[in-house]
């Protein structure tokens, strides 16, 4: 810079001499190599991501489709074991499976002996009878009438129609016998098999029958948990950040607090679960498996993230704003509440959303406080037992039934969708509202 002559002269000597040309070529080659390493790294990352997403989508998509069978039913009160029902409770004890059995039996009259009949009825989902009873309870007028109803097939039969059962294998190595396959083919030939969107996946709670299992219970559980987390960690985190950044006197004590907060952000999440078990459950006597405790544990976990993000957002507000406000006579509290905090809010919200996204994907702390459990009922509030979305993935991944493989991937897809949506919101918030000074 200071010697423009030398800078001008060097390229000439470089280009002219042989050694200069070689060194230049080496430098260009080194740069090209470096760039290609970078491209390779990005390519590798993208490829891994694509492979991961591709395999999850490929495995998960079948879970969104379910096959049902359309059966002609006669809602016979005698067969149901209830005479003219007056109260809806009577349907709870009705033998709805008897209707299904009668209908299937009339379709395949050759299945007479006990074993054959068992195999035949195993084609239907274990939940078909319960679903039928629920329909009857909702519409008691159906009693005595005839009509066709679509009912879920068992997951094994469903997998056959999805082409996941290899009929060429010996009978003993399949979940479906030759006879069952023949019956399913006959039902399909008669146009009784319907391919449907699997609504139950979105409207059902957990179940041990893959075809009935849904994510709603886990979704609602995650909602209550995150609500508690947000209500606890956001105000506390922002208050802590505002105090530390705007009001705290500089000193040893505050330094110590800062170091601790930064350390807490790096503590493995299972530790917070153990803390929750020891403090919230054993000491305060709060109930196990409830979103309230889950939310409290996750709030402890996200608190450092929220504080750190909020502090950096507050730090990004230029001192001139504070000085100007003080200059026109605002009190320190007014400076913070009227000027600094509103300007820092997009950054704070971004941090909070990213903290929430991390909390949404967490299972380890929930394990300790009993939220990793089989819970069928949809939780009605933060004090009812609930699981959470990643817990549902974990539980299904551990289930022996083959059809849960697809459910697991489908639940992962749902979880990823939520995470992407949350992170996208954070990015949008930042790009839309963040100010550059």
């Amino acid at each position, binding site marked *: 810079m200071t010697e423009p002559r030398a800078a001008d002269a060097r390229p000439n000597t470089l280009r002219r001499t042989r050694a200069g040309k070689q060194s230049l070529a080496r430098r260009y080659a080194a740069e090209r190599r470096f760039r290609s390493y970078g491209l390779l790294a990005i390519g590798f990352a993208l490829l891994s991501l694509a492979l991961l997403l591709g395999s999850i989508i490929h495995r998960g998509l079948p879970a969104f489709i379910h096959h049902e069978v359309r059966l002609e039913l006669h809602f016979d009160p005698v067969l149901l074991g209830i005479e003219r029902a007056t109260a809806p409770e009577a349907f709870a004890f009705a033998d709805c499976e008897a209707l299904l059995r009668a209908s299937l039996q009339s379709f395949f009259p050759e299945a007479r002996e006990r074993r054959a009949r068992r195999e035949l009825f195993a084609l239907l989902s274990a939940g078909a009878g319960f679903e039928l009873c629920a329909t009857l309870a909702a519409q008691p007028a159906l009693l005595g009438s005839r009509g066709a109803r679509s009912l879920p097939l068992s997951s094994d039969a469903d997998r056959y129609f999805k082409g996941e059962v290899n009929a060429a294998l010996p009978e003993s190595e*399949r979940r479906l016998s030759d006879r069952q396959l023949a019956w399913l083919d006959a039902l399909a030939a008669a146009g009784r098999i319907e391919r449907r969107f699997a609504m139950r996946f979105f409207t059902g709670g957990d179940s041990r029958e893959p075809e009935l299992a849904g994510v709603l219970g886990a979704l609602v559980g995650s909602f209550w948990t995150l609500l508690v987390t947000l209500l*606890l960690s956001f105000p*506390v985190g922002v208050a802590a950040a505002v105090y530390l950044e705007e009001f705290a006197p500089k000193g040893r004590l505050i330094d110590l607090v800062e170091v601790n907060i930064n350390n807490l952000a790096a503590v493995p999440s299972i530790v917070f679960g153990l803390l929750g078990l020891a403090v919230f459950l054993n000491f*305060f006597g*709060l109930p196990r498996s409830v979103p309230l405790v889950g939310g409290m544990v996750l709030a402890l976990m996200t608190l450092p993230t929220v504080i750190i993000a909020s502090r950096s957002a507050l730090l990004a507000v230029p001192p001139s704003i504070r000085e100007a406000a003080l200059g026109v006579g605002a009190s320190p509290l007014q400076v913070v509440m009227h000027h600094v905090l*509103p300007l820092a809010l997009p950054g704070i919200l971004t941090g909070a959303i990213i903290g929430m996204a991390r909390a949404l994907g967490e299972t380890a702390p929930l394990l300790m406080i009993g939220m990793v459990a*089989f*819970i*069928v009922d949809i939780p009605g509030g933060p004090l009812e037992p609930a699981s959470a979305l990643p817990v549902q993935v974990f539980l299904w991944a551990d289930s022996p039934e083959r059809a849960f493989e697809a459910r697991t991937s489908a639940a992962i897809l749902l979880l990823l969708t939520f995470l992407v949506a949350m992170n996208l919101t954070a990015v949008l918030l930042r790009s839309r509202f963040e100010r550059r000074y």
Partner: protein
Amino acid sequence: MNRRCASEFVSGLTLALALGFGLASPALARDQIRVVGSSTVFPFATAVAERFGRSTAFRTPVVESTGTGGGLKLFCAGVGLQHPDVSNASRRIKKSEVEQCFANGVREIVEVRIGYDGIVIANSKRARRFELHEEQIFLALAKQVPVAGKLVPNPYRRWRDIVPTLPDFEIEVFGPPPTSGTRDAFVELAMEGGAKKIPLLEALRARDKRAFKALAHAIREDGAYIEAGENDNLIVQKLEANPAALGVFGFSFLDQNGDRLQGSLVGGRTPSFENITSGEYGISRSLYFYIKKAHVGVVPGIVEYLREFTSARAMGEVGYLADKGLIPLPAPELRAQRDAALALTPLSLP
């Protein structure tokens, strides 16, 4: 606008604190059965819980998979609604655990045996089926084995080194970690059973039972036995990827994956439903659950849950639990278990 922001801030804080501390009291009321315990019994207990919830007016029980030991620890922590009502176990309750229960005021425990679970040693269909004997399982997996009359660290690298008729694969077995009940049972039945068939070790057993147990229960740690976590599906996937490896897991996973895995013969018997029921397949164990009698009548539905679980349509020979992979009890035994359970006959200290 800014003022509102501040006031919202404060109201949010108070709401959060109210949520945190004000609602602590309703913990005392509970109208839902709580089940904890073994991950092996979990698939069966959850199936019963779901049916029970659907077919009765009671709420569906909450079932947690904590492992047998962890479950009994929670179960024995005391009487009261904050403690679970039922604990599942893939082995019988130990004397020390019963004493723990007694010390914490849990005096009457009802034991129910629900059936058997076979432990299978399986590999991928793409490779040859293994025909093993218990002593070969011991020789392949023990930490120390007798060679030429002396105990040495396990020298076997390949299956063929043990017996020439076994395949020429490296010994590589995926199995559960020590925290698992399946591992306990595998070690007690297969490893100990195998060690007993080796004369040198049998002689040791006659002399010093404790030393024999320590030897028979020690699994090698040189990488031939790979702890694959509690997730049996993971083992299934690893076996599919690696046809030369074997896996150790519960029968229900073999039952579901019959198209890609094959169970090895142990002592000339296949791990089939029939062979495990009849007891001809050696590596099988009983499964149990325990009920806290003090909670009967306090938490609604316990007796009804018991009735559903022990009914023939659940635990019976062709019940829905058999569909899930449970090996049912013989009919007379089932009736005896059901009668004892419904009479709430408490366990007496052995």
